[in-house]
């Protein structure tokens, strides 16, 4: 795998990257809730992502363990009264710093090096896409459990009603135009 070298570089610099990401989360206006987390806990969470980056980027984990881990994170953040946009922003700030680090290692004249970066970016983006999606699912699950909130189109009967309403709207749009009937009376054409 081409991207291996870049991923190893992140793991080798995990401590420095974790410190930088932590500082960003603590000062960024979109992640103010993270100022209430114990600093060591926050650092450990970021360090876990950076130091075991190859572990988290593994494709099979993207389907199973990443899903479970980030669903649970969404639930946990909900229980600690974090707003969902803040949790998502924290994930994106982490991703952004990791991407800056990867992109900074580029040598504009080396196709091999650039290919490594492009491939690593694909893995990075896929991992954070999954993380954001599953954090949202976990958070929504807690909204339903704790506040009884469920989006109406999550409910099978309301989804079926909305689909039926759409079908009816489409029928109106695609209805065949009714042409006048032609009647022939002694060589004359009369519209029926």
């Amino acid at each position, binding site marked *: 795998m081409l991207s291996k070298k870049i991923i190893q570089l992140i793991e080798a610099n995990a401590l420095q990257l974790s410190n930088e990401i932590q500082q960003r989360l603590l000062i960024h206006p*979109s992640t103010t809730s993270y100022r209430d987390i114990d600093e060591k806990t926050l650092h450990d969470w970021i360090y876990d992502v950076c130091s075991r980056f190859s572990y988290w980027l593994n494709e099979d984990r993207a389907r199973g363990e990443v899903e479970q881990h980030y669903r649970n994170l969404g639930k946990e953040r909900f229980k600690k009264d974090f*707003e*969902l*946009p803040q949790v*998502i*922003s924290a994930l*994106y700030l982490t*991703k*952004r710093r990791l*991407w800056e680090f990867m*992109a900074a290692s*580029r040598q*504009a*004249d*080396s*196709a091999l090096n*650039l*290919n490594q*970066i*492009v491939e690593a*970016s*694909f893995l990075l*983006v896929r991992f954070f*896409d999954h993380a*954001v*999606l599953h954090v*949202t*699912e976990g958070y*929504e699950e807690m*909204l339903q459990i704790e*506040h009884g*909130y469920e*989006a*109406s*189109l*999550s409910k099978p009967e*309301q*989804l079926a009603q*909305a*689909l039926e*309403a*759409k079908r009816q*709207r*489409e029928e109106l749009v695609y209805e065949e135009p009714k042409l006048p009937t032609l009647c022939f009376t002694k060589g004359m054409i009369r519209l029926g």
Partner: protein
Amino acid sequence: MLVKLIEMIEKNAETMAGELKSRLQTDPATPSLQTLDDRVLYEDIFEVYSRLGYWLLKDAEKGEVPVHYSAIGAQRFREGFPLHQVVHALVATKRHIWDTILEKGIMRTAKELDSAVDFITYLNRFFDMAIYYTTLGYYRALNLKSAS
């Protein structure tokens, strides 16, 4: 070269929007999107692809991106869409751009790959902010409703 990549997506916007619309309407992960009128879903996607340069080269943290996507988040909340399915659709919109670029095979030389790295930066910055503000709009609408 960055402009070339953006123009390639804009030129193929019609086909790409049609492809993604069909995919989202049959994806078991996004059943709620099947309730949107075909034209509405198509135009939402086409709006991003056909003006990709406009969206990508803006400062995604200020101005139109926060306003536009917060409004979409609030609207999707009112319409009853589950948030994770809205997020899934945005992720799929981004991924289809990248898949198209890989498919067209226009990243062979060092110069093309160098531009691709810039393109990835712009693309992700825009979609990260689009997803963040959509979530923010949705979340705020949800809180307002609970409070009322």
